[in-house]
C-alpha cells in the first residue's frame, strides 16, 4: 500500500467517524494527491537503469573502434548522442516539462554520452594524453549537465570525477600540497549543484538517495583524496593519518548534517567512522585508535538509546561487539568459551533491540 492509498483509506474512516466534513476531507486529499511532477518510483528507477544500460552499450560499441567508418564519420557518430540529449533538453525546457521521470534518465544519458564522445574522439585521433587530463575534461563538460538537468544520480556521483582525477594525478605527478589544493577545489565545484538540490526540497525518496550517496562521497571520498595526495611521512604515520583524516571527514559531514538538519548525513558519518574503526581490532600498533573506536561505539549506542533510534543503537552495538569479540578471539582461550561468549553477545543484541522497540512503542502510544 503506498502513501496515497493509505491516506484515502484514513480520510474515508475519518469521514465515517464524523471527525472531518466533506470539504475538509476533499481539501486534505487535494493537498496530498499524487501530482504528475512527483516521482513514480518504478518509472524513475526503470528510466535511470535504462539510460545507464544505453550509455554503457554505447561505450562498449565505441571501444570496439569501428574500422568501417573514417575519422570524420566516427567523430560525427560520437557527437550524435550528445547533440540528441542536448536537443531533447532544449525541447523539453521549451515545452515546460519538469517531470523527474524525464530529466533523471536524460541527465544520466547525457553525462554518459559526453564521456563516451570524449573517449571516442581521443581514440579516433590517437589522442594519447594522460588519464587525469581525460577525466578532468569529461568532468568539466558534464558539470553543466548536472546543473541544467537537476538529475539526482549525476549530481550525487559527479564528485567521483574529482576522486578519480586525484588518484590518477597522484599516479602521474606524485603527492604534493598543490595537488591536494587542486583536488579539493575540484571537489568544491560539486557543491553548488548539491546546495541547489537541497533548496529545491526534493521528494523524500530523492532526498534520501541523494543524501546517502553524497554523504559517502563527501566523507569517504574526501578522506581518500587527502590521504592520497598528502606527502608521505613514513608508513606508520601515513596509516594514522588515514584514520584521523577519515574520522575527521566523517565528523565534519555528521556535524553539517546535524547543523543543517540533513536527515541522512549523520547516519552516513556514523557508518563511515564505524567502518574505519573495524580495522583497529587487528594488531596492537594502533591501540589508541582501538580505544577511541570503543568510545565511538559507546557514544553511538548512548545516542541511539536516548533518541530511541534503533539504527544507531545497532551500529554502535555491532561495532562494540566486533571490537571486543575481535580482540577476544585473537586470544588463546578455548573454543568452548569463545562460543559461549559469542552466543551471549547475540542474546544481548537481541534483548537490546526488543527492549528498545518496546520502549519506542510505549512512547508512541503516549
Amino acid at each position, binding site marked *: 500500500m503506498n502513501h496515497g492509498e493509505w491516506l484515502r483509506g484514513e480520510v474515508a474512516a475519518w469521514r465515517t467517524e464524523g471527525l472531518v466534513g466533506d470539504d475538509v476531507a476533499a481539501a486534505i486529499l487535494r493537498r496530498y494527491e499524487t501530482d504528475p511532477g512527483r516521482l513514480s518510483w518504478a518509472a524513475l528507477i526503470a528510466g535511470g537503469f535504462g539510460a545507464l544500460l544505453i550509455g554503457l552499450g554505447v561505450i562498449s560499441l565505441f*571501444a570496439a573502434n569501428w574500422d568501417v567508418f573514417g575519422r570524420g564519420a566516427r567523430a560525427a557518430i560520437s557527437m550524435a548522442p550528445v547533440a540528441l540529449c542536448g536537443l531533447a533538453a532544449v525541447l523539453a525546457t521549451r515545452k515546460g516539462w519538469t517531470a523527474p521521470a524525464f530529466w533523471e534518465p536524460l541527465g544520466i544519458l547525457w553525462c554518459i554520452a559526453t564521456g563516451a564522445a570524449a573517449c571516442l574522439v581521443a581514440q579516433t585521433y590517437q589522442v594519447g594524453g594522460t588519464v587525469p587530463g581525460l577525466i578532468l575534461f569529461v568532468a568539466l*563538460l558534464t558539470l553543466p549537465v548536472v546543473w541544467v538537468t537537476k538529475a539526482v544520480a549525476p549530481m550525487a556521483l559527479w564528485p567521483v570525477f574529482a576522486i578519480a582525477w586525484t588518484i590518477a594525478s597522484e599516479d602521474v605527478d606524485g603527492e604534493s600540497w598543490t595537488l591536494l589544493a587542486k583536488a579539493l577545489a575540484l571537489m568544491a565545484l560539486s557543491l553548488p549543484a548539491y546546495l541547489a538540490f537541497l533548496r529545491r526540497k526534493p521528494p523524500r525518496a530523492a532526498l534520501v538517495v541523494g543524501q546517502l550517496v553524497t554523504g559517502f562521497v563527501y566523507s569517504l571520498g574526501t578522506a581518500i583524496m587527502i590521504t592520497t595526495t598528502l606527502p608521505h611521512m613514513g608508513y606508520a604515520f601515513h596509516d594514522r593519518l588515514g584514520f584521523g583524516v577519515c574520522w575527521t571527514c566523517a565528523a565534519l559531514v555528521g556535524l553539517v548534517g546535524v547543523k543543517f538538519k540533513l536527515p541522512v548525513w549523520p547516519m552516513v558519518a556514523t557508518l563511515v567512522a564505524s567502518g574505519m574503526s573495524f580495522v583497529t581490532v587487528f594488531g596492537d600498533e594502533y591501540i589508541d585508535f582501538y580505544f577511541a573506536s570503543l568510545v565511538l561505539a559507546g557514544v553511538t549506542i548512548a545516542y541511539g538509546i536516548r533518541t530511541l533510534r534503533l539504527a544507531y543503537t545497532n551500529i554502535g552495538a555491532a561495532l562494540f561487539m566486533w571490537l571486543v569479540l575481535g580482540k577476544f578471539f585473537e586470544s588463546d582461550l578455548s573454543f568452548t568459551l569463545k562460543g559461549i561468549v559469542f552466543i551471549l553477545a547475540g542474546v544481548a543484541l537481541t534483548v537490546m533491540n526488543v527492549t528498545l522497540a518496546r520502549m519506542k512503542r510505549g512512547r508512541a502510544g503516549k
Partner: protein
Amino acid sequence: MSNVTKILTVAAVLAVQCLAIGWLIVRYERVVTQGTEVRFRCQAYDPYDAFRGRYLRSSVREATTNIVGTVTMKNDWEMRDKFVVRIEPSTNGLWRVAEAALAPSGEGLWVKPRSSSVGYRLDWSDRQKDESYEKFSVRQKTSGRAVHATFPDQLFLNEKLAPAAEELLRKRTGDAVAVYRVLDGGMILTDIELGGVSILTCAKEAKDR
C-alpha cells in the same frame, strides 16, 4: 528564471560541449591531414585502456647530446619535460633527434616530446654483460650529458585485431617503426609499421589466415 533564459542556458551548455569536443577534433585533424610524416624505430606491445579500448604502446626514446644555448643543468628533476627537440631525416627513411633546447631556435622541425629528461648519453641498458658496474659508471660519465625524449606512444585499434597485432609485434620486434604526423610542435602517432606495411593491415591478414 524565465523560460527563455532556461532555454538559452540549456542551449549554451550544448554549444559549449560541442565546441569543446569540436575543438579537440579540429586540432588533431589538422595535424593528421597537414602534418609532416616522420618515422622512428620503436618497440611495441599491447595493453588495454578501460576508457579508450585496446591500444598498442610504442616505445620511442631518442637522445641527443646537442643541447642549444646555455642550459644550466641545475637539477635533473627540475629540467624534466622542459625541452623541445628538433628532428631531421636520418637513414633508411627514419628520422632522428638532432638537437634539444628550451625553446625552438632557428629553422627546422621542432616538436614538444611527450616527455623529456636529462641524463647521461649512455643508459644502464647499454652496459655490456661482462662489464662491471664501476667500469660502466665511468664510461657512462664520459659519454656526456644528453636530453632524452619520448614521443606519443598509444595507437588505439580494433579489439578484434589487437591479439593478432600483439603476436606480430612479438615475432618481429626489430621491424617496428612508429609513424607520426608533426605540425606546429604537435605530434600524433598515426600508425605502426612492420616492414613498411601498416600493423592494421598485417594484423587483418594474420587474423584472416
